[in-house]
């Protein structure tokens, strides 16, 4: 029987990596009780924090890659422990020790070389917009539209970016994209532990922003929104950042955008973690949906602060999840349970995950997935 003594070096490494929040944890277990993983398998964040408190984390285990950064635990933690930061710190150490699962490593490498996680050529980054009325951002353009790697490259999610363009043009807004000068916001890889990669991506982006005189950014993805708004100021620069749902809500409140076409659908809105729990944006997307005539807005069982994560944050999107363990499957079931015709979304990662689930569950004929902006565009078209 070996005596268990705190492994001081390991503890110090975690603290250096930014995970010193573990000191506050008093092991109550609310995080484990709240974690959505326990709906489909067992995952005890408390145990991982306990191991961290003693420097006993096994860097080779799958468990350190389980956290999706949904923040449900942080919201409820009675000591205010930032668990997501601790997970990030542990993963930083794993990345430095090159103990990263293969599929995630591929995405990280891709980001480092071509600026996006999908392995697509950088030169093709602006292709999604080539047939649309979108100009390149130059000094003096008012608004930068940042489409996110996923809508830019993935045809399934493209509609999220094209819908925003349609609205911007309908409003006569002065906007542009940086195209090939854009790099991934890096939000997910930072949470996945590759701090160096995040720093380099951020520097590239900020350089591009500053050189082009960017002041205000409109993002399609809540992850880009969170990154630019909360994390980029660490580099000393602040930009005005808004998400597409906030932009729409503002236009509708000011009366400049009036959806008139009746859509006659029962719509359930899925709160994305990055908009909701990270940034307290719950009402704007709902206001936007309520303004569309004929829409009956219903709430999913776990909504707003209790929203069930789709399972795509913090790098999880690039890690294998067996079919029985998909949180997005449960979300589709919940949407069907409330009798929704449409599940409305506001995040490209949610889009990918839920699309996947919808197809594998074979429910594509009874439930549709639509981005909030996409619905608005449908309601203003002639």
């Amino acid at each position, binding site marked *: 029987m070996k005596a268990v003594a705190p492994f001081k070096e390991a503890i110090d490494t975690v603290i250096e990596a930014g995970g010193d929040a573990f000191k506050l944890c*008093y*092991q*109550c*277990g*609310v*995080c*484990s*009780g*709240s974690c959505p993983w*326990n*709906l489909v398998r*067992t995952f*005890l964040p*408390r*145990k991982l924090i306990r191991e961290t408190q003693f420097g006993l984390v096994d860097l080779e285990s799958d468990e350190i890659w389980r956290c999706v950064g949904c923040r449900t635990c942080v919201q*409820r*933690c*009675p*000591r*205010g422990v930032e668990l997501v930061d601790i997970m990030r710190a542990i993963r930083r150490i794993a990345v430095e020790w090159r103990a990263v699962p293969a599929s995630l490593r591929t995405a990280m490498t891709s980001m480092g070389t071509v600026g996006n996680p999908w392995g697509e050529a950088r030169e093709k980054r602006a292709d999604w917009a080539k047939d649309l009325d979108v100009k390149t951002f130059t000094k003096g353009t008012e608004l930068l539209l940042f489409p996110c790697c996923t809508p830019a490259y993935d045809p399934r999610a493209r509609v999220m970016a094209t819908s925003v363009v349609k609205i911007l043009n309908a409003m006569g807004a002065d906007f542009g994209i940086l195209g090939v000068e854009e790099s991934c916001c890096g939000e997910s890889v930072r949470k996945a532990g590759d701090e160096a990669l995040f720093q380099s991506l951020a520097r590239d982006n900020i350089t591009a922003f500053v050189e082009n005189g960017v002041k205000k950014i409109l993002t399609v993805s809540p992850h880009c929104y969170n990154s630019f708004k909360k994390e980029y100021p660490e580099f000393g620069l602040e930009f005005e950042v808004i998400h597409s749902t906030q932009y729409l809500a503002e236009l509708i409140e000011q009366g400049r955008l009036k959806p008139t076409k009746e859509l006659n659908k029962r719509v359930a809105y899925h709160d994305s973690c990055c908009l909701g729990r990270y940034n307290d944006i719950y009402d704007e997307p709902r206001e936007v949906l309520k303004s569309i005539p004929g829409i009956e807005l219903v709430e999913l*069982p776990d909504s707003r*602060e*209790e929203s069930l994560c789709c399972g795509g944050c913090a790098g999880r999107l690039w890690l294998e999840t067996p079919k029985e363990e998909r949180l997005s499957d449960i979300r589709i079931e919940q949407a069907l349970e409330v009798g929704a015709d449409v599940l409305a979304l506001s995040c490209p990662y949610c889009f990918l995950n839920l699309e996947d689930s919808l197809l594998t569950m074979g429910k594509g004929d009874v439930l549709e997935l639509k981005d909030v902006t996409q619905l608005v565009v449908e309601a203003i078209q002639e």
Partner: protein
Amino acid sequence: MEEKKIGVYVCHCGTNIAGTIDVEAVAEFAKTLGPVAVARDYKFMCSDPGQAMIKDDIRDHGLNRVVVAACSPRMHEPTFRRVCSDARLNPYLFEMANIREHCAWVHEDGGAATEKAKAIVNAAVRKVYLHEPLETREVPVNPNVLVVGGGIAGIQAALEIADSEHKVYLVEREPSIGGHMIQLDKTFPTLDCSACILTPKMSAAGSHPYIELMSYSEVAEVSGYVGNFKVKIRNKPRYVKVDKCTGCGECAKACPVEVPFEFELGLINRTAIYRPFPQAVPTAFVIDKRGYAPCRVACPAGVNAQGYVSLISRGKFKEALGVLRRTMPFAGVCGRVCTHPCELDCERATVDEPVAIRSLKRFMADYELRVGREKATPIEKTKEDKVAIVGSGPAGLACGYDLIKQGYPVTVFEALPQAGGLLRYGIPEYRLPQAVLDNEIKYIEELGVEIKTSTPVTDIGQLFAQGYRAIFLATGAGLSQKMGIPGEGIQGVIHALSFLKQVNSGVKVSLGERVAVIGGGNAAVDAARVALRLGAKEVAIVYRRSREEMPAIATEVLEAEREGVNIHFLATPVKALAQDDRLTAIECIRMELGEPDASGRRRPVPIKGSEFTIDVDNVILAIGQTVDKAALPKELTFTGWGTLSVDPVSLHTNIDGVFAGGDVVAGPADAIGAIAAGKEAAISIDRYIRGVDLSEGRPETLKRVEKVAKEGVQRKARAAMPSLGLKKREGSFAEVELGFDEKAAMEEAKRCLNCAVCSECLECVRLCEAEAIDQGMEEEIVEVEVGSIIVATGYDAFDPSVISQYGYGRYDNVISGLEFERMCNAAGPTGGDIMLKNGKQPSAVAILHCVGSRDANYHEYCSRVCCMYALKYSHLIKERTDADVYQMYMDMRCFGKGYEEFYKRLSEEGVNFIRGKVAKVTDRATSDEEKGKLIVVCEDTLLGRIARVPVDMVVLCTALEARADALAVARMFSLSLSADGFFLEKHPKLDPVATMTDGIFVVGCCQGPKDIPDTVAQASGAAARALAMISKGKVEVEAAIAVVDEEICSGCRICELLCTFNAISYNEDKKISVINEALCKGCGVCAAACPSAAITSKHFTAEQIMAEIEGVLV
């Protein structure tokens, strides 16, 4: 000036100072300073030998100033000041130099620290050189004590002080003392019944000769200073005389109003008159009255609508009618024709629709007629002076009614053959059957009012000659206004009032087939609907404004349209067209609405060229009524509108003893307005006859209740008034509105929110044999003088509905700690049975610890008692049910005497302890055994497994938090709040009962959550402190305070604004600021702020501080 001889003593403080600073060097340095006569260093200056050293030197060397360089003055300044005074040196000629906390303890470099210590000593020497001797003052201590709060803490403190034969004022804001402790069932760890151990103390406190218990009272204002506080206490009106009430409870049985019971946490309701619990001290009941209901305030006549509506809801129809008859006798009449201003302000409308007050009033009258009205007992005419009333309309009759009730002989003179005025001659039978009016006029006559019909009065002088002392003119405005259009005199053109009068008098009126009625008021609508019933085939109303501006009652207008009346809006006739001297048509013109006129309504403007014709056989003009000036005495003065001019408050005309009211003064208005005027006239006439000022205290304004509780009120549609079918109405004057039946009336009355709570139905007064109820009681402010104050205001329970994941408020069987206590209590809502909301016993119960406590999202502190009461609940559940009990805990805090043993006992009882804070409570089952249950989700951290525990009931161990009004109370008593919101004690370890305000103590949970043993101990402690002050009889007041130089002070009062201790006041005579020596704490803010440098901070004068600074820098 005397030569200054300073003694400097440098303390080693063991190694605390000497370990860093070279103390001998500092002493050597001190010797070099001018006026220093002696300089020594010593190991422990505060010790006896150290102190003796100073005393010897003062005596032997004639020292007249002393400096001790050692620890902080907060530690030992009092010690060395005492040393000086023991050696006959004024204690203020001493200065402490802090070379420990300010030097040795904060520096590591010994050399630099020593230099700094020398500078500090230099500064102290220069300052003490300038010290002046100061005298402390003493103020006497008033031996009375105020205890604020009658929970266990307050009761304990009060009893201890009272037992030593000193007077205590015990102020409690609830109707009874007992606080939260009396709500509990059993107490841990002994499982004593809470009431059994508390009620003897409550009883003792209630009857103690030295305790003046002021229950249902609050402290309103505190002024003064330690030993001499002046406190204003607001005694809220109970409306029940405490010394008369026997507590029999008959009143509550009769009370028709129910509201949620606060003592029972809203689990059940109580009546407006209530006693919080059976063992209440005092035992008297109390009436919850929150002002006046909006319906009552809105009624011009002040009818207590809530009173009769609440009684109807209980089936007490006869008593309800009695409530109305206190104010006026027209239940049937007004119940049919009133314009119901009450319904327009009804609070129920904010939930769904207003209560049908008017129709409920009618119901009462109809009910009485149905069961048979007993003949009214004539009222004895106790007054000699008789009163004449001219006009038997609603104004005149209401006036007579009020006067006869005061015993005045009244005669009403009526010109027409029957009494009633426009009620009889203007309102059609299908709206107000004359039989209903007859009944109510008969009632008035039975009481003793004499009505002389067919007796017009033309000469009021005659009336005075006949011996009438006062006259009320209520002749109305019965003259039809002329239109002034060509053809108005043609045969076939009728005026509405005369038309209606004829029909109501039984005169046969023949109309043609086509009738047009001009006007938009009730008379127009009445005329139109009468015309239909008389056989006219086409009836139209022509009104010059739009539907929104129509003054007629909206429901009447709708019924007219349903009956077939066609309304032409925005049109008016310009001339009547005739053929063979008979009316054939009217030419009308269309109108549009322009700017508002004097009445506030938009003025109709004719549209040029829009003329059109309506073929008619008759035109009925109903465009307005005026006063018949010719019928009134010429001596009276009239207004520009042709109405009688009167004093707006007393209704006195220009002729002495002649009053007027109703339409004759106001112009055409509604019945209720006339009734209100009649009542005002009655007051004026009574005062006039008694020779008392007519206007004093008038008009009476009633305060409308501010906030009306609407939580949990379900929407329910207003009862629909059944009405006669359209076919049945043809050619018939049968009443159209049929009235509610008993069931519908009671259901509708139950919709009333009882805004004012007590409805003043006075049933309790009627039934109280002890005659203990005084509905007219008023709030009293009492001022007391005390020497010390003990604040024991207790705690509030945290509301767990903010923690949405626990489902409190969403799931029926998730309950809070106090709710569980009430359930267990034999006197509580379930009689002590632990049961689910559906009445069944639970088969499994989960008790969740730390709900709102130890949580950065709500309260960071631990509430201290929850672990123990969770164990207690587990025991009670095990004792009374077969349920499984689970406790989800983070820690088990069983720190007190017998507490750990109690924990062991509960482990033996088979309670399941799961270490894990609950993440959520849900009803979404994931397996069969979870169906229909509440599932508690947590991690069993000891097993390292997620636990989903299916239970029937979840009890939340809710936190204890500071009272919602803690900040306001703190301001009143000059207390501070600590970060957790509770009152701040002077020192958390060494002085937990005193506060920074001398003479004011805090005890019990208001200072921080604690259990009963600790509360009682703290209360005894505060009592001892108060008694110590009383025993000494005097209190020393610090001499280092600020003083104003009267010569220099300019009276700008800046200092007054800045003083946080309220120590500065303004002397109006001398026009200068004055500092209260007892309140001043010497903080120095005023001295710093004074623009004229008129204020000196004694012992910290500008010169002294400058000297210190020089000493440090040089």
